[in-house]
């Protein structure tokens, strides 16, 4: 077995357990997320994430989770970055419905959206079929990186892919009707859910608001096409994957404008002979510089997107 950060932490924990230490020095109270579900629409709540990048301060709680009233409990959309997060979430939502979470849906294959799944292993966990495949393939490498970034916040977390493939189109989950839209662009497969009763669009990471969009697995053209489709829904409100609840459609417009700016900046950079380090100094329009997680996300996007764009733009020389 290749030693990983995760197994190393496991060994450390085991070693600590074998020595009679005074008190439980590793069970520190500081690893607490203090999750606060707040009303979003009638019968819908959200847990709002920080708009920063992953850090030891936020413990990875940078994501929005949604809770919708179902027939036998609460339908949870996305489960957060860690086992600790999901365990806290499970307790805190009993104030909304004593029966707790009845079903889970994952929007896409990024660790901050599904690494709490194991806490709900006794409930149905839905995801698009292709997302399940991706979670099986990439779960361990995402996990290694999350342990590296977040350390003890991740203790006990094991990636668990969804257990049931979600149908698309009109679907019913625990008695509640949704329109399930299989889209792509933020990743290879992104699920958006339109709640029939309230008209709330749960956009996953196809929409960001006042937080820089992450482009790790992005395809800009496909993502823009998905945003056009979401705009045509004229949803009553939009819950972006990161950032505050959006009642005006600003999240879709802002995400689209930012992606266009990335495309333009990188294309012009390639045609001026710039490389990635030069691009880190690109002047950023104030509306994008003010987003959460900047300039980190912009710097990451240079790595994700520039090499392919440059390859497309530079002429053959032999």
């Amino acid at each position: 077995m290749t030693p990983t950060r995760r197994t190393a932490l496991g060994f450390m924990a085991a070693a600590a357990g074998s020595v009679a230490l005074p008190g439980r020095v590793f069970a520190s109270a500081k690893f607490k997320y203090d999750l606060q579900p707040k009303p979003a629409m009638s019968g819908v709540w959200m847990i709002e994430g920080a708009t920063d990048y992953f850090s030891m301060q936020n413990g990875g709680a940078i994501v929005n989770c949604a809770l919708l009233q179902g027939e036998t409990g609460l339908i949870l959309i996305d489960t957060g970055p860690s086992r600790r997060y999901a365990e806290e979430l499970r307790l805190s939502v009993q104030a909304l419905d004593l029966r707790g979470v009845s079903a889970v849906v994952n929007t896409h294959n990024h660790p901050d959206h599904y690494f709490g799944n194991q806490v709900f292993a006794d409930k149905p966990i839905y995801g698009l079929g292709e997302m399940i495949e991706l979670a099986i393939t990439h779960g361990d490498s995402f996990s290694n990186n999350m342990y590296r970034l977040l350390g003890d916040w991740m203790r006990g977390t094991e990636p668990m892919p969804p257990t049931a493939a979600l149908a698309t189109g009109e679907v019913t989950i625990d008695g509640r009707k949704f329109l399930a839209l299989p889209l792509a662009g933020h990743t290879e497969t992104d699920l958006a859910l339109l709640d029939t009763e309230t008209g709330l669009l749960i956009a996953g990471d196809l929409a960001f608001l006042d937080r820089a969009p992450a482009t790790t697995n992005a395809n800009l053209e496909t993502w823009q096409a998905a945003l056009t489709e979401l705009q045509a829904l004229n949803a009553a409100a939009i819950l972006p994957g990161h950032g505050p609840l959006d009642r005006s459609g600003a999240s879709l417009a802002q995400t689209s404008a930012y992606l266009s700016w990335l495309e333009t900046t990188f294309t012009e950079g390639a045609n001026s002979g710039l490389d990635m380090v030069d691009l880190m100094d690109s002047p950023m329009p104030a509306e994008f510089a003010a987003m959460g997680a900047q300039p980190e996300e912009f710097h990451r996007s240079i790595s994700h997107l520039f090499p392919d764009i440059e390859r497309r733009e530079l002429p053959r020389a032999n």
Partner: protein
Amino acid sequence: MLKFVLAVLSVAVVPVSLGAEELRTQLDDPYDSGMWDYHQIELLGNPKDIRFDDRVIVRAPASAEDAFNVPLMVDATGIDNVEEIIVSVDYGPIPHILTYYPGAAEPKLELRFKIDQATAIRASVRTSSGSWHVGSTRIDAAGGGCAAPAQAYASDDWEDHLGEINGRLWTASGRARLIVDHPMDTGLADGIPVFIIKELHFLNDDGSELAHIDLKEPVNEDPAFTLFFDPDDMPALLHVQGRDNNGNEIAGTLTGEALN
């Protein structure tokens, strides 16, 4: 696993090497990384006339987002009469990334490389008088960039593109940029031998050499470089000639706007 063994070996080797050869000039490493003394002897040949020098600028993102393609800019234009720039990492199974001989070009280069772990990065600049000036930065990384197979093998037509060059000149800004298709296999991935471009030479139209790069295993797959020239002294075109360790020739010509 191999990199783990190598790391253990290299740690074990340090005191022996230092015992065999004393540092002629002990420097105060601004990154305090532990391996620098060793590289000062093994990579630079234990020069006496050496110092860390802020005029050698090494720029990179603080964290490597893609371990296979870490961008780096080295700028020694603040120093006169630069003959050679050795770019290296302190920690990694193969520390030496490349050596750049700027010749008639500016002593400044942009490149990408594969990183294996968080490490200090160095650009060691030798002038014609034999004095060394070292610039540094540090990059955080999850790692794994050196010991994985080239991504080219995910497609079955990589051989058709071997040695293809994309690139051009920008005469107004003095930039020459090129990407050469090549797997750049380090030999550290199981069952895949070393397969790298060894050298790239840059010549003007009458065939005289203006600059050249000696590449080592850590240079990224499909190496990408920017060379810099004084815009007033920029050649109208730049011939690229090189070869890999299997004897494949690489040849192309970069042209500017007017010649396209």
